[in-house]
């Protein structure tokens, strides 16, 4: 019976050993898993940081865009304001002075070699709207050149030569207007 007891006790100790080994394995498993978890967590953190970076980039882009927008909008406003005033002046001249200035070729600032047209209105009291046009060209050297007039003015060549002598555009135009008037109101 002692022998049997001895065998039982031996088994008991064996079981304990097995358990011990098992526990050790489990502990190292746990450590491993813990380590894996913290690795994955730091990966996630990194990726979240990347996300944040992207969001920040987008924010920055939006900010830049907003800044540009502000600039462009203010430029536009300044332009439109200036244009409004220029337009006002132009209209005042056009309506009350009764003379419209047209650039024939090109939309930009008149380059030497292009044509200017002066359209007079308010000439004929009975038909204020009817247009009396004189077309000029400006040569490269800045000299004026008469192109045409409508209605035709006989004295135009004489006026042209005076203009070319004196380069006095205002006088020229005043005289042309005088001629138109004398034609219209006579």
């Amino acid at each position, binding site marked *: 019976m002692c022998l049997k007891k001895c065998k039982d006790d031996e088994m008991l100790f064996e079981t304990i050993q097995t358990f011990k080994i098992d526990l050790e394995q489990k502990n190292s498993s746990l450590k491993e898993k813990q380590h894996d978890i913290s690795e994955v967590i730091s990966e996630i953190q990194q990726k979240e940081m*990347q996300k944040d970076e992207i969001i920040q980039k987008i924010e920055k882009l939006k900010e830049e865009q907003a800044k540009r927008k502000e600039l462009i909008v203010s430029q536009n406003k300044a332009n439109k304001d200036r244009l409004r005033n220029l337009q006002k002046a132009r209209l005042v001249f056009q309506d009350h002075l009764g003379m419209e200035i047209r650039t024939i070729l090109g939309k930009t600032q008149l380059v030497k070699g292009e044509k200017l047209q002066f359209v007079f209105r308010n000439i004929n009291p009975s038909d204020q709207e009817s247009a009396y046009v004189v077309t000029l060209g400006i040569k490269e050297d800045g000299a004026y050149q008469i192109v045409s007039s409508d209605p035709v003015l006989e004295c135009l060549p004489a006026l042209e030569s005076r203009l070319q002598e004196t380069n006095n555009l205002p006088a020229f135009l005043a005289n042309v207007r005088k001629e138109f008037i004398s034609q219209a109101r006579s």
Partner: protein
Amino acid sequence: MVLHELSVCVHCVYSRGQYKTRGRRKSTNDQRRSKEDARSAALRLCLNHGKNLYASGATTMAQGHKFQDLEEMGEALLEYVNSTQTDKLALMKAEHQALFDQHVETKKIVTQILKEEAQIEESVGQRLLDMEEEKQQRDRELEGLEQQLRQCMAKSQITDSELQYPFFFFLNGELESLRNAEDQLETLQSEVDEDTTEVIPSAVYVAQVYYLITKIKWEYETPPNILKGVHYGTDLATPINIDTTARSRSNVSDQLWGFVSTEW
């Protein structure tokens, strides 16, 4: 216990023997014979009793050889008793007693050993239980950690796809709004450019020509029918103030053209 009973028996026999020996001087041959018969009978009884005890004793402990000694001793005992060597009987009894004492001592020790062993067993058994509980706890912990790991990996994967298609996931609509805003800005910019490079210069040029011709600068913040400005002649600056409702168009034009000299 068996030995003790046996030694009692022997003692009885011995004492009876002594008694019988003392009484021998007075007795006759017949008396002696009957007394010897009685003695033998007692001995035989003793032996039988002893034998019974032995039989029961054989099943208890693993000290078989001691019982065998006992048997041998019992037989020798008979011999000695029959030969009335009482001295040797006394010796036998002493040896028996010694053996019995040793047996008791051994039994004590063995009992102690067994008791200690039982204690150890108990503590070991407890230890086993503790370990088992610890094992279960670790298993639970492990499971918990595995679940946590799974969750983390899932989150990591989700974040991966978020990163792959950011505008789909966490920047919904940002791309579109950025693009729209950019388009608007482009349109506005080109308008600004056109104005800056073409429209304004052209308008400025026209304004310059008007000034060149008329030398008039207008005031803008005036009521609608009032023409207000200044004519900048070579020596003189003349204010202009005309109510256009009161006059005809050609009349106003004539007046304004009045500022432009026809003299070359």
